[in-house]
């Protein structure tokens, strides 16, 4: 029996609720009752993907920041435990990044016509994928534990300095397809000026919270497993 079993079970139930709400809430032209969502012209049912695509890209951002912060903590304290946490966060970040890219490009195909457009935000998620790939390539090229941890932490800090430029600045100053680009006042994450009706916003934020908590749970499992592995290697 895992610890905090009830909390984890309720998290799973929370996300089940999000899935059901996201997929099954009916879409009608003029919503009147609390569980009816408006139809967005040209998107219709496919708009539901927003409940899953945006929270996943949000989670990969959280994972990225966590990985960089743990890298900084390692450089300050030299404790290898921080390095373990940094790798686990990076691994999870990669998974969520791939999922966000795939869901995003499927949505792009429906919405804008082609799977990939080099829109600034699409480019930024691709760069994030490249950074993760480079991070793991660097780690696999060094054998000494401490050296590997130091260099990986340094690289994640450098990437952490240039990536926000991509993720936050460029999509707003360049014209692009995502909402919130230059010339389009629709608003986008993380600025929460979402022009969504209230009940849609509830499901959306519930999804973000659920995915973030899921990330923390997956992270804790990975870190605990990594600690067991490293302690059994030493003994």
């Amino acid at each position, binding site marked *: 029996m895992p610890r905090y079993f009830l909390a984890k079970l309720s998290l799973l139930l929370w996300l089940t609720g999000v899935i059901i709400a996201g997929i099954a809430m009916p879409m009608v032209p003029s919503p009147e009752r609390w569980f009816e969502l408006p139809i967005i012209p040209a998107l219709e049912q496919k708009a539901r993907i927003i409940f899953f695509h945006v929270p996943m890209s949000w989670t990969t951002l959280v994972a990225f920041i966590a990985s960089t912060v743990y890298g900084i903590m390692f450089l300050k304290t030299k404790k290898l435990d921080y390095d373990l946490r940094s790798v686990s966060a990076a691994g999870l970040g990669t998974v969520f990044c791939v999922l966000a890219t795939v869901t995003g490009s499927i949505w792009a195909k429906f919405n804008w016509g082609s799977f990939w457009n080099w829109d600034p935000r699409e480019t930024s998620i691709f760069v994030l994928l490249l950074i993760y790939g480079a991070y793991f390539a660097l780690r696999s090229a060094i054998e000494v534990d401490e050296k590997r941890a130091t260099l990986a932490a340094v690289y994640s800090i450098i*990437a952490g300095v240039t990536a926000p430029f991509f993720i936050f600045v460029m999509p707003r100053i360049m014209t692009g397809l995502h909402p919130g680009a230059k010339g389009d006042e629709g608003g986008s994450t993380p600025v929460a000026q979402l022009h969504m009706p209230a009940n849609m916003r509830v499901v959306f934020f519930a999804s973000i919270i659920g995915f973030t908590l899921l990330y923390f749970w997956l992270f804790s499992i990975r870190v605990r497993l990594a600690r067991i592995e490293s302690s059994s290697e030493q003994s």
Partner: protein
Amino acid sequence: MRVLKTPSRAPRIRVHSWRMVLPRLVSGPSVQYLESAVKSLFVPSYQIFLKDSSSELRTRYALNALFMFVVTALSIILFSLGSESVSSDVLAGMLWVIIFFSSMSGLSRTFVAEEERGTVQTLQLISRPSAVYVGKLTFNFALTLSLNVVIALLYLLLVNGFAVQTPSIFWATLVLGSCAIASSSTIIAAIIAKAHTRGTLYPVLSFPIMLPMLITVIKATQLSMEGAFFSEALEEFQILISYTVVLVAVSAVLFDFVWRD
């Protein structure tokens, strides 16, 4: 009783000349601080810069290989373009592709050559990590700048259809872009010098870091080909300058961790 005569010391002219240069108005402690900064940071880094450039110029293997790489890349592009005329956007992008890959083959030498020659520990003993970093950074600046000027001149001469209408934007982009490339590639070169698969790892690590800069620089080159005014490209120049400043600042702090064993 014989008294041993202490050897008379020759006056230390170097220190005194600095004192003569600085105005009398500057008070004592700050002059000493400046002196110590000059002696422990700028002088060693200048010497490291001189050492690197003289060793590269003496046996020109690396420089020759780099030049041949540029010629090869350019020839491949010219050959595949043939007599077709390509849009100016594509040509601008191609120029920076050549520049990027030439930098990737040339800029890691400063650190990798130290590892290969086994001179890393000597370097660690004789100077501060910051001095090593500034020296290598200066060397990479100089190398990138000269390399990019050569590439740009060749490109202008040989590729037909590449007509620059606002030369000021073009050359300013080249200079700022070279600084930006050098600043990001030096710290990455320091990182991969300690790893195993150095050659292939270098572009893999550098590309995500350089991508924002590459996008900006390609856009500025396109602006220069369209004949835009200098003031229209100021946004791009701001991005390039801030990128360089941020990266140099962060690398200067992080270099200590990378350099120490």
